[in-house]
């Protein structure tokens, strides 16, 4: 589904990704761990299509297509979803209207008619219950005045509404208490299927108790330096990043 080969990227003069490789197949859950500032959010943003970065080498294929040729909105309509580390507050636009525009953009892209009102409302109701988001949040301005946990649940709600092929969760767990963490993880687990894939960026092992990864990648200084199974995450938690530095000799 996703194939990243030798990706180099910089922002201004600063090189952030330095030859990153990653392959994700349908039905898989991949976790990416790594210290702060190592380029995890940069990777997520580049996959989603944020323009601030210059790709100096490498390629990203999504279902065989060159992802870097597509605009961010085209990528989303093709099935790429980013749950933001820092969801944006947008005063004046309700989550309902936002989602209606997003759902219809995707439908149009796939040659479908706009969704009928009744069906849309039923879908909103079903998906918000998945993440235990109160109905009142949907008529409020996007993320405005939401707590950290509510913002993250709203991201997962949006993910459920858009039913992506590839979902990237950028530190969706940080700032969540254990109940919220469980809600978010349950939501993800219910959406998991053999046709989609998840890339879960996290600092902490604890999320991976709930969303069990097939692969764990350790990222350091703009590269994936080690890949293993879920036990690698536990090892990381126990031994910290210094261990990795020594192990891979950086």
């Amino acid at each position, binding site marked *: 589904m996703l194939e990243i080969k030798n990706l180099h990227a910089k922002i201004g003069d600063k090189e952030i990704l330095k030859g990153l490789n990653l392959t994700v197949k349908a039905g898989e859950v991949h976790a990416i761990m790594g210290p702060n500032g190592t380029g995890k959010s940069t990777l997520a943003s580049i996959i*989603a299509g944020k323009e601030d970065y210059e790709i100096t080498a490498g390629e990203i294929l999504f279902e065989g297509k060159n992802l870097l040729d597509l605009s961010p909105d085209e990528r989303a309509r093709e099935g790429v979803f980013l749950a933001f580390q820092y969801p944006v507050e947008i005063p004046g*636009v309700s989550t309902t*209207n*936002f989602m209606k525009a997003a759902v219809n953009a995707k439908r149009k892209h796939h040659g479908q008619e706009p969704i009928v009102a009744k069906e849309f409302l039923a879908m909103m109701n079903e998906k918000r219950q998945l993440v235990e988001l109160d109905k009142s949040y949907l008529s409020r301005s996007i993320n405005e005045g939401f707590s950290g946990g509510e913002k993250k649940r709203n991201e997962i709600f*949006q993910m459920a509404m858009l039913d992506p092929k590839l979902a990237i969760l950028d530190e969706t767990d940080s700032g969540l208490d254990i109940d919220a963490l469980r809600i978010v993880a349950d939501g993800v687990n219910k959406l998991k299927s053999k046709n989609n894939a998840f890339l879960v960026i996290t600092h902490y092992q604890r999320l991976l108790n709930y969303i069990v990864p097939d692969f764990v990648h350790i990222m350091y200084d703009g590269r994936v330096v080690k890949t293993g199974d879920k036990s690698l995450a536990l090892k990381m938690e126990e031994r910290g990043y210094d261990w990795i530095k020594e192990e891979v000799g950086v």
Partner: protein
Amino acid sequence: MSFTDNIETIFETIDKDNLSAVRESALSSFKTLGLPSARHEEWKYTHIKTKLPETLRLVASQESQVASKLKYFNSIKGTKLVFINGVFSAESSVIIDQSGLTVGSLKELSSQHEAIFTKHFNKATDISKENFAALNTAFAQDGAFIYVKKNTIVEAPVFVFHIYDHASADIFTQSRNLIVVEENADITIVEDFQNNNGEKFYNHVSEVFIGQNAEVNYSLLQLHNQHTTSVNYVEARLEKDARYHITTVTLDGKLVRNNINAYMDGENSLATLNGLYIGKEANHIDNHILVDHRVPNCNSHQVYKGVLDDQSTGVFNGKIFVQKDAQKTNAYQSSKAVLLSDEASMNSKPQLEIFADDVKCSHGAAIGQMSKNELFYLLARGIDKETARGILTYAFANEIIAAVKLPELRTYLDDKLKEKLNITI
């Protein structure tokens, strides 16, 4: 050659009426003032002189099909006064009678209500300083006359429609309203200018007198004016405890100059002045706001928001005067503009002149761009760039529409805004 060169000849052609003396003095004032040049401080960014027609054709015979141009006309209940190319159309107008309310054509009603007329006409504008107000007073043809007797709560809103559908480009109408609302009375007024047929010019003056403890809700709409060059004055005088809420919504206009002036003459009066403007292509939209606090304990609150795309230009000039007797004044002003293109520009000039010492005045002016983070958030959900920009513009602009009190008007404006921004949310 411009119409000012033979203005006296044109003056000779207008009907003699009970205004002749006022007109004479306004004409002489206009001749002294002339048309504003770029050197005129108040017109520094709005170069109108060269954009006016060569003749001053005040009215034109009306054309048909007016009803179809007032699509929302029937869906909202209210009195409707219709002026077509400057001429009152009794047949298109609908008047809902209510005791205590007189409403109709100024030309027809001014002699019947001579005392009210003489007491108020031309008393809210300053023709010794305002070029276009002087021009209007000299040549005024017709407009709305609205007189609300004391203690009358006007139940149905009063709509004043100015429809321009004449094919000729040279009509330059001088429309004129007189609105007198006596103590404890209450009225909602919606004034709408629509140009459906090529290039047009108009110069409009609306004088509003708000009596003690009376309330006026006034909306001035400029929604279908792509080829219009216009100057608009809304001059309001507020007595003790009066409440005045004015909203201007400018979604179109080749060149628009709004002069929204509120004179706080009576203690404890309140004025809220809101405005929304959206400029595209080469639109030029200029809002000049003046709030003059002359007595103690008054409140004023201005919020202007603009969005400028393509090569459009915006001007905001907000004056707050707090005279030396106007202690305990509370005045607020906010001007925010978003530039959507590199070629769009905005000139913003807050001007606070405070001569009293015990006052609360605050102002803020911001000119910015659309937030990249917000835009990316929408794109990342699959919404195309044009729609995303439309949604964010709507989000920014909506505050002004949401504050409109008349529910049917609010819905209508909300739809118009979305239509303008090409979004369907």
